């Protein structure tokens, strides 16, 4: 597995998100705790809402367009809504956010 340094943890607001452009489309990096991050596809399966602009609560995010809620650990939509977002491996080390490089490889292939 190759980890790619995408930026400083401090540049992702606590209970907020930032966007990372990849060959597979935009990935949202969410910060759910002081040192806890998740990464998932930025596009809401409902109508493409930008999830990085949603409200982050617990380990979930609410889509800004029509309030679907996704579990960031599993990617599953919560409650009555049906859908899921792709999740990606991401971790924090020494204050930096590292994203799983396998993602990029896929895009290049």
């Amino acid at each position, binding site marked *: 597995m190759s980890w790619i340094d995408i930026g400083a943890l401090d540049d992702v607001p606590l209970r907020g998100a930032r966007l990372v452009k990849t060959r597979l489309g935009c990935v949202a990096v969410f910060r759910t705790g*002081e040192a806890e991050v998740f990464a998932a596809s930025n596009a809401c399966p409902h109508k493409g809402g930008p999830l990085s602009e949603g409200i982050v609560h617990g380990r979930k995010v609410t889509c800004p367009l029509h309030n679907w809620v996704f579990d960031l650990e599993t990617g599953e939509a919560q409650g009555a809504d049906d859908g899921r977002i792709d999740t990606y491996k991401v971790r924090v080390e020494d204050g930096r956010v590292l994203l799983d490089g396998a993602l990029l490889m896929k895009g290049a292939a």
Partner: protein
Amino acid sequence: MKKLVVIGAGMASGRVLEHLFESAPDAYEVTLFNAENRGNYNRIMLSPVLSGEKSYEEIVTHDEAWYAANKVTCRFGEHVVGIDRARKVVIGQNGEVPFDKLLIATGSAPFIIPVQGKDLPGVVSYRDLDDTEAMIEAAGTRDAKAVVIGGGLLGLEAAAGLRLRGMDVTVLHLMGHLMERQLDEAAGYLLKRDLEKRGIRVITRASTAAILGEERVEGVLLEDSTGLKADLVVMAVGIRPEARLATDAGLETGRAIVVDAQMVTSDPDILAVGECVEFDGNLFGLVAPLYDQAKVAAATLLGEPSAFVMRETATKLKVTGCDLFSAGDFAEKDGREDIVYRDPGRGIYKRLVLEGEKLVGAVMYGDTADGGWFHGLIKDQTDISEMRETLIFGPAYQGGAALDPMAAVAALPADAEICGCNGVCKGRIVEAIEGGAHSLDDVRAVTKASGSCGTCTGLVEQVLAVTLGDAFELPTAKPVCGCTDLTHEDVRRLIKAQELKSQPAVWQELGWKTPNGCHVCRPAVNFYLLADWPLEYQDDPQSRFVNERNHANIQKDGTYSVMPRMWGGMTNPEELIAIAEAAKKYGATVKVTGGQRIDLLGVKKEDLPAIWADLNGAGMVSGHAYSKGLRTVKTCVGSDWCRFGTQDSTGLGIKLEKRLWGSWTPHKVKLAVSGCPRNCAEATCKDVGVVCVDSGYQVGVGGAAGMDVKETERLVDVATEEEAIEWTVAFVQLYRENAKYLDRPYKWIAKVGLDWVKEVLSDPAERAALVGRFDISQSVYQKDPWAERARPEAARRFLPLADLTLEAAE
């Protein structure tokens, strides 16, 4: 006899020697170096020494007699300056000592942040007895002030000790909450609250810019330019393993001295233990694992097989009255589930983190009695699936049947406490009900139960239901959301009554069921806090809907709309040219809105700061077309131009807009001012609408023209512009202070009654007070959000964090 040299007489090496002498008193002839001019003492008990609860003599672990009995050659107060591995000698300041085996146990050194003034007299760290004595001495001066940099375990113990010695203490902490590595936000909040109760000031998100002083320390300057006076500065920001001797001697080091499971370094004759080692990538900062290491090291020295294994360690803070416990891993990694329990009345918070069928982390505050048990479950990786439901209640509850809440209430004895705040037990409530109190309000009036923090409301209702049977219907007040049983009104009332000034305070004191709310309650709570405590509370952008966070309206395709303010609907050629140029430059669609201004649609997020800067350049500010706040003040041309105009409606509209813009409100607020009863500005369907007449101004409120259509009702008729403005501002502030989040004024007025609104506002003193509070809030919030975000540092946040599309893939 073989020769063993030990460098460092600290917690770890002390244990090694104890084990060694116990199993084989004659195996080694020991020479013990220590940089400190004393032998082994219990370093973790320095905190009670600092606070005066213990003396140094009481914490000495090995005294002269012990060293003599074990024939240890003590070279205390002498630094080791080198290790010559080829000649197998240790070089002390006063000469060399040969060894067969060497044990390095040099611990760690405090990390000193490299700011100006760090070397001034009066700046100390907190590591050894000398530091402790320096602090005790500083505390001896009358009215002395201390600033502790670092809100971790050490910093807080230092702060508590200094406070007990009578110093005025401020703790500066870089992160958002105290002890962030051991505690989550909720527990961090409780800790801060308890420290503040002890008179310790805590400033979070405080970054030290410099330590000030000429001869000795005089103060601390923060990045945000806050200045603090200080006679003593304690730096407790972290530790750095003391591995220099090993590095110089060519031993393998990473972040510390690398050892294997036998505690042997890359040289088979050299061992190392304690905070100076790195095992399997791990560093150490608490004594429990060091004691395990010590046992292993002693065995290795005696040629016995033994291996060190990492165990989860638990943290406790040795500050009397601040009971906290933290163990395992409660934040990082996927696939986890939380169980949260809060008892606001008693200040208790517990959170368990589960991964599959196992407990992996626990944070507790207030009641830590079950800490040991949870720690055991974590260490042993016990399968907890059987007791999942009742796990949080601790070992005492295990093995019982599932609880039916009604049956549980029915089974409570008469002396069981229901309302912790007012000390009301079940018997007293039953008595009141039997005496005729048949509703929650009645019970509250008679017994005070549920009258303070309100979190026992549900229990009181259950007692009513159990006592009255079918005669009592459980009310269906609608809670804010699934995170709480409280209604918006309750939350607002309690935030004021209990002076809750932060989100964690609300979550904890009002018993929220989730760690930090959800998209429904967070924006509401954020608004309530900023409306009630404009100076103390800091607005949280992450608790805002995207439009308010980005200061632009998101469109269905993910682009944004940009709408500059046009005061009272007035504009001029320069503004129009700037708008036209911006529209061209950023490819925006131009639309004239229903609110008398111009909307630029389809702007990309990354272009927002730039287009704002351009519009700012032409003197325009945000129109807040996205906010729960003041939107527009529509006007008609009025007496300036119109043949029927009675007053300067345009001028009054502009004055109102200039006064009210930038304020946050429960829902959006729209105003209009018409110059005569023909009402071309549609003032009679606005939240506040002013209609000018010959004799003055008719102020109406509570109109609507959206999902509902409603005509305004007259609030007051006044003679002058000043009065019209005063009444309008006072009305808006009353709305801000009382309405439920997302109730437009007409909905709120329907609940409280226009009579009540009029009654409050007709008292001149009350009106003046409301205006005063509004102005205080505006002193914080009336600033152009565009200008702030167009600055490069802030603008950066509108760009993607990274662009990996260009990254080369192998």
